[in-house]
């Protein structure tokens, strides 16, 4: 057992650090959930991509570096400790692309992945519907067979990034007579500017249009934009949840960097006699370290040929609760300045704690609420009987 990085991994870390030091904007970009910020973050994705830092784990032919999972973790550690911008391309890069790698065709990968890596195409996700949140398999939007493709109709909601994104991916009911709710769904990709698509931005709790409702009225999608076999959408959407996606939704680097910043803030500004705050800072440090080590363990098991299963549910609960606790602690240390919003001129550290706090509040809700994750852990890892939700 060891925690060593190879010389090549250390060299990779040094190269990433040098690039980030030279390129990360000194003043944080405006929030990516605004039109101006979205455009600035898209430019940042292009800059990353130009030097092949946007998708390090992808094969070189699609704009990556063929980096190992461990190298990806190293990159993320450097990325967040350099205080680099949030990733506006995240939906495409870490939700869609793993499914394309596993279930897409060569033609799809060649057509879709490079512009995704460059930030030329930014993706929104279109899973939830007004009546289908945690019970996603009950979704009702339809895909109807037509000449050369499918016609999408229905309503999607909580589509993150959709206010400003280019394209979206999601599940649609294509075989309405199927025996069970999660059978007969098809995974489709479509343009948010296609005829028949209406986008109504939804303002999140701080007023920024971070997600949107999508109204779809007979939107034509060619066959080439079906991912995997029609009718197999549920399996395709879920299959990558267990392996890399479970690991890569939120990298430990983000929390290690935030815990380090919190510790620095505490050393500079907190009352050393306030042991209650000190204990919370220590818990943030311990939590971030635990998450990092847990991920190293998983990454090295995968590298040795193992797989990840429902453990990713534990990950999601752990980091989302850590993220909130960590930001709450920072706001408490900041005292009267803690409540100053991201845009306030006098907000400390360009309002990054306030922005991070707002972002953290969504963590226990999206990508399967933490209650659903706890059910999954109880049933699939502990073997407890299914019951009413």
């Amino acid at each position: 057992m060891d925690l060593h990085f190879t010389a090549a991994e250390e060299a990779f870390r040094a190269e990433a650090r040098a690039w980030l030091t030279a390129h990360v904007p000194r003043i944080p970009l405006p929030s990516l959930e605004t039109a101006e910020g979205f455009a600035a973050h898209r430019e940042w994705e292009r800059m990353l991509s130009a030097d092949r830092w946007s998708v390090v784990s992808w094969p070189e032919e699609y704009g990556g570096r063929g980096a190992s999972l461990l190298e990806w973790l190293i990159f993320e550690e450097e990325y967040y400790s350099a205080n680099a911008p949030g990733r506006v391309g995240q939906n495409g890069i870490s939700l869609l692309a793993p499914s394309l790698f596993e279930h897409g065709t060569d033609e799809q990968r060649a057509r879709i992945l490079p512009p995704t890596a460059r930030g030329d195409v930014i993706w929104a996700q279109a899973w939830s519907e007004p009546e289908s949140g945690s019970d996603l398999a009950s979704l009702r939007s339809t895909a109807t067979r037509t000449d050369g493709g499918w016609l999408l109709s229905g309503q999607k909601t909580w589509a993150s990034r959709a206010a400003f994104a280019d394209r979206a991916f999601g599940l649609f009911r294509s075989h309405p007579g199927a025996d069970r709710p999660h059978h007969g769904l098809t995974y489709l990709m479509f343009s948010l500017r296609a005829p028949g698509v209406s986008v109504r931005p939804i303002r999140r709790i701080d007023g920024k249009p971070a997600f949107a409702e999508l109204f779809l009225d007979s939107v034509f999608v060619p066959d080439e934009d079906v991912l995997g076999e029609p009718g197999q959408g549920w399996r395709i959407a879920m299959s990558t949840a267990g392996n890399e996606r479970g690991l890569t939704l939120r990298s430990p680097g983000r929390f290690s960097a935030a815990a380090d910043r919190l510790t620095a803030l505490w050393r500079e500004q907190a009352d050393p006699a306030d042991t209650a705050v000190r204990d919370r800072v220590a818990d943030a440090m311990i939590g971030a370290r635990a998450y990092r080590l847990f991920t190293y363990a998983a990454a090295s098991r995968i590298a040795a040929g193992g797989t990840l299963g429902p453990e990713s549910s534990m990950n999601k609960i752990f980091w989302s609760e850590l993220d909130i606790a960590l930001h709450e602690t920072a706001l408490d240390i900041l005292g009267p300045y803690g409540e100053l919003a991201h845009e306030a001129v006098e907000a400390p550290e360009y309002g990054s704690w306030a922005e991070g706090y707002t972002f953290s509040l969504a963590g226990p809700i999206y990508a399967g609420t933490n209650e659903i994750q706890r059910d999954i852990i109880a049933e699939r890892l502990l073997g407890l009987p299914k019951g009413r939700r």
Partner: protein
Amino acid sequence: MMFFLDDQQREFARSLNSLLAASGPPGVIRAWASGDHATGRTLWARLADAGVFALAVPQEHGGLGPLPVELTVAFTELGRHAVPGPVVETVAAAALLDRLGDGAAAATWLPGIAEGRTIASLCLLSADSPYALDADAADAVLVVDGDTVRLAVRAGPVQSSMDPARRMSRPSGGQVLARGPAVTTAAAHAADVAALATAAQSLGLGRTLLAHTVTYAKQRSQFGVAIGSFQALKHRLADALIGLEFAEPLVHAAALALAQDDPASGRDVAAAKLAACEAAWNAARTGLQIHGALGYTEELDLSLWIRKARALRSAWGSPTTCRARVLT
């Protein structure tokens, strides 16, 4: 990087697990608690034969160590079966003797510890505890006071613990074994070894508490269904599992840091101790709650695990001490 236990380490864990399961731990624990050490000493000898204590003793004195990673593997299994006696204190005493720079003391005591002939206890007054665990069962009781280490000759009356298998007493008197700055350094190292072993032991306790509680929740029926189908219980059990799963890599990483004499190992050990003991205690509270009134009885064997988890939470570094150390 290969941050997981290798086949040999997993096999070591499996063999200790079977050895311990076959020894009937609840009976041994209850006998030990009543002051009858016979079955405990028999088990101790078997553990020594399996190499457990040799892991803390260097080869020159008949051991295999120091091997902190294997030590955490072993102590997780000891915790899984709530093995009574000064197991932590014995390996910590070995770490102390190994680092004293006093060849005679090391040669006198370490071979016996490795072979299981010598049960040791250790009291570090600097660690804010005036007590030695199970001094009445120990063959050697070491007491560190500042830069002096003594071999105690007497122990005060037993102060019973909420974990009935932990018998605490104040050691006193005895000859000075060593004095000087080496003692202080060795004692700090011994405290780290003790905290790490306690963390590993707590992980094991927590695993058993969770496993037995899950089994009970599947069997116990109320309102016509297994109580384990209720979300309120599922979510508590899921949280207990999360606590243990995220504590385990902290324990392994702290062992690696100690193995490499990493200058930051004290912080890593403190993080591991806090997380593992909190996770075990959460598993204990969950176990108590889900077993209902049954969990609140002395008769239920699991109560021995519940009470030990609480005691270990404060032993060898309280939560407050550990948190403060993480930020040093």
